[in-house]
């Protein structure tokens, strides 16, 4: 199969897009089977682990059996004192955590999780008792639904970790017993610590970053994903009110055809995709042209030019974008009302008052143009790096074939660039879907649009800026923000799958070594 000369199939040239599409479809087709075989693999190994769990209990001696109940006893019995003590401590801590704290939240978390209903039991309410000092009725603090979700999910993870630790301690203590049988002494804590700088060095390297990731990315993210399945918004603000589990209702609202929310979502989505498409490709092609211009033979001061353009990357975006937004500002709205320097210039030269921030279409076009200013130098840098790597003999052979510069670009440069930077383009597209800065700092999402207004979005809002406004703005709507976040994730994930599919087809990680 690898021998091309033995193939009887005639070679059919395909466009790269068709090829990409086909390989993507092939991946999708293969996915269920792959997933199934993987799932059975996981199932089998899990089943084997479960069997091992019971078998080692039956087989083990008293110390091993005891360590099923009290973690670390097996280790203590076989002389791994430090490890045993650590396991024991972990168990004690876990029990303390569950009794004093986790258990309560876990209970409230799951109480109505599957059936729908309040998150928490007691809403904050006024009791019948009069507080003479404050001069009002005593307020009784109720449950905080948000805390319940947060601590609930935290406790779920804690339980999960504990179970894994428990299984591990049981496995270890059985292995220790077995090792003792064949006369092997267990490694002491010194050896364990020494290994942390050698064969277990990854533990040293990864533990702190993973702790950070767990507490400040995984737990919050899991919480906010769950919020998408609740009714948490301005009307159910904690801690005054409880919110409810509502299942997929928010998704239904967001994606439904009829509701005003659905219409808003569709408009914002379409603009987001349009924006990502235009901003990615205009930047890419103009950046490439600029790179070609600078890299052309005979141009002097290449380095200076490159540096000049790079200046726009170097200046913090909030500075450059804010100043541009002020340069484009209309001042008041109508002709002759002054405003930013560019607006004034256009008005003086063309007699046209730029409707930046007033008219949706104008604003959108302006944003895409300004984004060129921001993004072209970046893709110029990238393209020059790659352009220099195009083998010179490709051009030489083209020159021998008397190919003109335009054809040379179309037939050699462009295909090469597209091939090499294909994954980058898609990554960039995903980046632009989430390009908060350009929109927020330039137009702030404006101008307003009546049909969008009720749902907190404006004319040039992307999903991501809408999300920001929903979670911070005046009409807080956390549940919708979470739904948008999840939908953005889905779009990104599908696009990333394309990249992954392609780059893994081109080269395996190991081949690079």
């Amino acid at each position, binding site marked *: 199969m690898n*021998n091309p000369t033995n193939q009887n199939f005639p070679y059919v040239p395909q466009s790269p897009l068709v090829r990409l599409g086909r390989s993507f479809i092939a991946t999708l087709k293969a996915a269920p089977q792959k997933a199934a075989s993987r799932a059975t693999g996981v199932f089998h190994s899990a089943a084997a682990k479960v069997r091992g769990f019971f078998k080692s209990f039956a087989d083990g001696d008293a110390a091993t059996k005891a360590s099923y109940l009290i973690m670390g006893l097996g280790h203590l019995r076989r002389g791994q004192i430090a490890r045993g003590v650590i396991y024991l401590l972990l168990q004690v801590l876990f029990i303390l955590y569950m009794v004093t704290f986790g258990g309560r939240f876990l209970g409230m978390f799951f109480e109505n999780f599957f059936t729908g209903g309040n998150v928490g039991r007691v809403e904050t309410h006024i009791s019948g008792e009069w507080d003479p000092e404050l001069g009002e009725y005593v307020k009784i603090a109720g449950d905080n639904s948000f805390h319940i979700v947060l601590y609930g999910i935290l406790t779920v993870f804690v339980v999960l970790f504990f179970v894994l630790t428990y299984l591990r301690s049981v496995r270890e203590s059985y*292995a220790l017993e077995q090792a003792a049988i064949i006369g092997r002494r267990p490694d002491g804590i010194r050896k364990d610590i020494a290994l942390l700088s050698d064969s277990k060095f990854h533990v040293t390297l990864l533990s702190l970053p993973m702790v950070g990731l767990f507490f400040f990315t995984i737990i919050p993210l899991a919480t906010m994903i769950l919020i998408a399945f609740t009714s948490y918004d301005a009307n159910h603000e904690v801690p005054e009110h409880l919110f409810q589990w509502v299942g997929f209702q928010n998704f239904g609202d967001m994606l439904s055809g009829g509701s005003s929310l659905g219409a808003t979502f569709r408009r914002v989505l379409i603009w987001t995709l349009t924006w990502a498409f235009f901003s990615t490709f205009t930047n890419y092609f103009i950046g490439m042209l600029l790179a070609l211009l600078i890299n052309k033979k005979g141009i002097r001061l290449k380095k200076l030019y490159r540096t000049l353009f790079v200046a726009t990357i170097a200046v913090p975006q909030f500075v450059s974008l804010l100043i541009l937004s002020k340069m484009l500002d209309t001042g008041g709205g109508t002709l002759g009302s002054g405003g930013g320097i560019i607006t004034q210039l256009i008005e003086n030269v063309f007699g046209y008052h730029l409707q930046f921030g007033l008219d949706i279409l104008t604003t959108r076009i302006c944003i895409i143009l300004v984004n060129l200013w921001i993004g072209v130098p970046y893709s110029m840098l990238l393209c020059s790096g790659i352009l220099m790597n195009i083998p010179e003999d490709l051009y030489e052979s083209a020159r021998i074939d008397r190919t003109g510069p335009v054809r040379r670009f179309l037939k050699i440069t462009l295909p090469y660039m597209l091939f090499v930077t294909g994954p980058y383009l898609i990554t960039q597209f995903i980046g632009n879907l989430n390009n908060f800065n350009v929109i927020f700092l330039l137009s702030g999402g404006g101008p307003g649009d009546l049909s969008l207004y009720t749902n907190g979005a404006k004319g040039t809002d992307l999903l991501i800026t809408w999300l920001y406004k929903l979670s911070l703005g005046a009409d807080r709507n956390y549940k919708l923000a979470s739904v948008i976040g999840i939908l953005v994730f889905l779009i990104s994930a599908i696009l990333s799958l394309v990249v992954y599919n392609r780059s893994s087809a081109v080269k395996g990680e190991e081949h690079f070594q």
Partner: protein
Amino acid sequence: MASLSLKHIYKVYDGTTKAVNDFNMEIRDKEFIVFVGPSGCGKSTTLRMIAGLEDISAGELRIDGDIVNDVEPGDRNIAMVFQNYALYPHMTVYENMAFALKTAKVPKDIIHQKVTEAARILGITEYLERKPKALSGGQRQRVALGRAIVRSPKVFLLDEPLSNLDAKLRAAMRAEITRLHERLGTTFIYVTHDQVEAMTMGSRIVVMRGGFVQQIDTPKNLYNHPANLFVAGFIGTPRMNFWPATLRREGNAVHVKLDSGSTLTIDYAILNHVQPRYMDGNHPVIVGVRPDNVIPWRAGMDPAEWARLPVTVTVVEALGGETLVYGHIGVAVPDHDPIGEAAESTQPANSGGKSEAGTPDRITSDTIIIKAPADYEAHRGDVVDAAVSLKKLHLFDRETEASIKPRIPTENVCLCTPEGNALSFAGQRFPLPPALCGVSSPPKRETAPAELSLPADAILLGTGMGRAKVEETELLDADGSPRTLYRLTVGGVTLFALETAPPRYGVGDAVPFDLDFSRIAVESHGIKPLRVENALEGRFTKEKETDDRGRRVYRFYLDMLDQPVSAEESLCEKLFSCKGTAIFRTPLSYRFPPDAVTVTPRQREPDKTALPGRVTRLLDYGRVTYAEIDVGGKTVIAPYDGKAGESRENAAVSLVIDQTKLTVVDREADIVIV
């Protein structure tokens, strides 16, 4: 100062793919061992396992007698030179060479002394302050060697160290490394895919393919006596000519009929190693002859030594010192493209694609390469005569690809006449032992000649009624155990005998000999050799018991067919060191030769030191009597001298197995553990 021992070394990926299979080798101190083979043959993997950079999936690696399977690479006292040199780019040459010593916290002045000494040896003193980037390929190579030298390691590992150099430099470095080896007197293990490097540098060469060792031998023996088609094709350039053929013996002449039509006739004396069954005129074989041994025919050449073959020339390569003539055997011009084919068939076997697997896929070809003197003139289309050296022919079985004319003949095949209770061959008559009397009745009771196969080590010199004359003795010394090969003439027939002892007879001695009848075979008469290996399935188990002083201790048992047999401590240690506690979960197969078993009449109840069995049949081979013993439904064959009881058949016996002769196999993964 270091010997290495590799026993049953395996490398298994993903639990299924075996990159290295049952690698066994004893490497003596100061040897220069070369692992050679096409890419993917497992040579580098083996080297990296020795280095400790790859885990050893199964087996035992010892350096100077210590098991080092689980020793970190840095603690094995081994140095390695990498293919891309792996010099630390940010350090100077001096720092590169000093790194290992610094890591080991050697005092600074000693580091300085060692590094400058190594630099002097390698002639890189003037570069010590440079960074690797500023060095040429050859200089980098020297630094890499120097980095290894300063540590005074026990073993030097070199992983294709010359493959990044150009051809000229490579030749120079080759010589330099050889000199270095002599100077340092350290054990070297060198991996390469280049057979020229292997041949010029190695004191012994290990040829590998597909994870299997093909042959371990000296360069000379590899060249002159390749063990199989792959080794023959891999070693030597231009590659050996291979022609499919059949052999037919007529009296003292053997006709080698090539599939392409020509016939070579050879004196039988040259082919007396070859087993007669290949000479029946239709057993497919492959004839191999190196281009060195194919020269242009000259008038007056001795036809007993040289065969004359007409060749149609397709390509002539004048190399300056010699001329290579490519062509086809025969005078007809073939209709396929001769140039491409000739070119293809002369590629070194390691050049990729199918030919990499070693089996020449053009085995049906009739292409020939002639090594002619430099002034030889020939042109495309000419028909020239080639002279093929008949003494230098190699012969291979076309099915198994193994050489049928091995250097060390392991089996004699000669004609014999079974006569009921006796066996005559080569003018000797041996009474058949009782075990063979019954079976040796031929279909017709004629005294027709039959083919006797007689393993070389089944000829027992020193006693017996046979008389042989020693023609030649050769001491074979592979892996440190001396063996002697005797060439004998017995009544005009040549026989080879192998003994695991130094030579004890001289040339011309008349020696009595006997036969080990348990090993002989006369296929046409139903005489088969006794099975040489017993195999019993089982597990390895533990029991908790109370010892004499009342303590609870674990005892370990070889559980053969659910019959526990106490495991000896040394065996337990080996098993534990190889498999750890997983040994209790692994299905095993215990294999042992009949000699490993001692059979005694069973007196009491079985006591976990011996296997209980019941004799089902006695096999009297004269010198030794064997018994077929039923053990839990399986038959075990063991020597049995029935002195003890009258009714020997059906007797209840106990079998004690010598556990040092036991082979333990992981039945699931098919891996030899001990």
